[in-house]
């Protein structure tokens, strides 16, 4: 597939491959890390959904409370001796589908972040309308709705939508973890990353940092991955965004 890119006043063609080759090392690292995170989250979601877990996330091990990472419990245990790794995997259920749904709604209908996205796309359409390939499509007699749906939205705005969806997912994770931290989302004993941080709070101040820190690091690494992926793709696919 080829896309068109304006540089120095002329429309130039560039294929996907050369774009990846032209990207800086930093961008490649950012996108690579982001894809790794997205893959890890998706695989973990499936594992949690079918119940393939290292341990039962609600089984208490009274002999090992607030245990550090080690053999038996790869990422340690929480204040009730429950396996943190299993709870982290199960905790993805709390935001995965709701997050996807929220992103889908905001992209398609426009409730949460939509004014921003809509204005970005409107700007992009304005920019593309003056391009000669759109004129060519008109001259060839294609109906306007086909031009808008296929040539403008699909070929040229798909990257934009992917970028916005990626950034939106990061935002959704932020919102879900905050709500469940405050006790308004998923409730104990069901695991979510936010309520896991909260559950470990009392022990944190007595020097048992790990049960709070493990889910906090999971949140940090995941949101970082979605942000880096979104922005990396942005620089790769939308160089010098249309003005």
């Amino acid at each position: 597939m080829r896309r068109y890119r304006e540089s120095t006043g002329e429309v130039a063609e560039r294929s996907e491959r050369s774009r990846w080759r032209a990207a800086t090392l930093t961008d490649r690292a950012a996108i690579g890390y982001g894809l790794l995170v997205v893959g890890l989250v998706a695989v973990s979601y499936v594992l949690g959904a079918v119940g393939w877990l290292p341990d039962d996330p609600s089984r208490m091990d009274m002999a090992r409370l607030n245990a550090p990472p080690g053999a038996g419990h790869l990422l340690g245990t929480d204040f009730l001796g429950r396996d943190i790794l299993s709870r982290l995997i199960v905790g993805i259920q709390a935001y995965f589908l709701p997050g996807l749904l929220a992103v889908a709604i905001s992209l398609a209908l426009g409730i949460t972040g939509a004014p921003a996205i809509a204005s970005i796309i409107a700007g992009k359409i304005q920019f593309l309308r003056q391009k000669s390939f759109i004129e060519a499509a008109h001259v060839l007699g294609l109906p306007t709705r086909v031009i808008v749906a296929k040539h403008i939205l699909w070929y040229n705005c798909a990257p934009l939508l992917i970028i916005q969806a990626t950034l939106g997912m990061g935002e959704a994770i932020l919102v879900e973890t905050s709500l469940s931290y405050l006790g308004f989302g998923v409730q104990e004993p069901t695991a979510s990353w936010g309520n896991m941080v909260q559950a470990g709070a009392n022990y944190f101040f007595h020097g048992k940092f790990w049960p709070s820190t493990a889910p906090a690091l999971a949140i940090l690494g995941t949101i970082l991955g979605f942000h880096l992926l979104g922005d990396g793709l942005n620089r790769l696919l939308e160089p010098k965004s249309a003005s």
Partner: protein
Amino acid sequence: MAARELALTALLLLGVSLVVFVILNLSPGDPFSVLLEGQAPGHAARASVHEALGVPTTWYGRYLAWLGNIARGNLGTSIRTGVPVAGEIARAGPNTLYLTLGSLLVTLLLAVPVALYSASRAAGALARGLRLAVYLVSAVPVFWLGYVVIYLFIHRFGVFPLLSGSAEPARHGWLYGLLPIVVLGVANGTVSEVTRHLRGELGRVLTEDYIRTARAKGAPVWRHAFKEGFLLPMTEMIASKIPFVIGGAIIVEQVFNWPGLGRMVWQAAQDRDFPVIMGIALVAAAFVRLASLLRAVIYAGVNPRTATD
């Protein structure tokens, strides 16, 4: 123009209040069962509480009653404590204002230098490192950063006393007030986007023809680039990130035991104290609306063409 904006604001606040009210009424639990807690209230007991407090039994009846009070400038009284909501908001509001505006300033103090530096031509390895740091900082969960800071400053080094809410003036009181502001400013999750937007806009403006002209004339470039390349993106970011800062404030007030609206609304949510929740929701919505009005004013000031529509 002004009348239209005012009407729009009123409509917006009305919509927000209706949505919040419906959500509160759809969610399980109501303030009256909290009052009757532990008494296994029957239907008759509920009805008598409703009657004693003069509360309509249908949800729209209660909404209209609330709306009628609002029209007369009365936010109602807390069901839990019986204290007027308006007074409570006036008491706790300044604390939250101090927290949110202060942390917004911290966010900008972090984001702006990084954006300016990496938009300049000298950008290299250091700029990349700074940008990565900004991303890292934006992904830190604010509650966890709060724990770390509290542990370090209170439990480990003992710089501050354990309780801040005591009557006697705390040691280093003013400094203690800075901790939540810095924590919220750093970790409200918006630093990376503010940096990215400002850097992108400034970079774009610096390649515009009128900047090249200014450069050729030997005129100061920053003065020409200031409005479009700095003022507008800054305004845009502040207005669109205020909801995130408010959301973060609820968490930070919780973590730091900060006597503001965020902790008040959290407590009210535990008690299902609807008048308090409604009052604070209204204030928060008005605050967000104010920020977007301010943005419109600044946009109109910079580019008078946008003022006509």
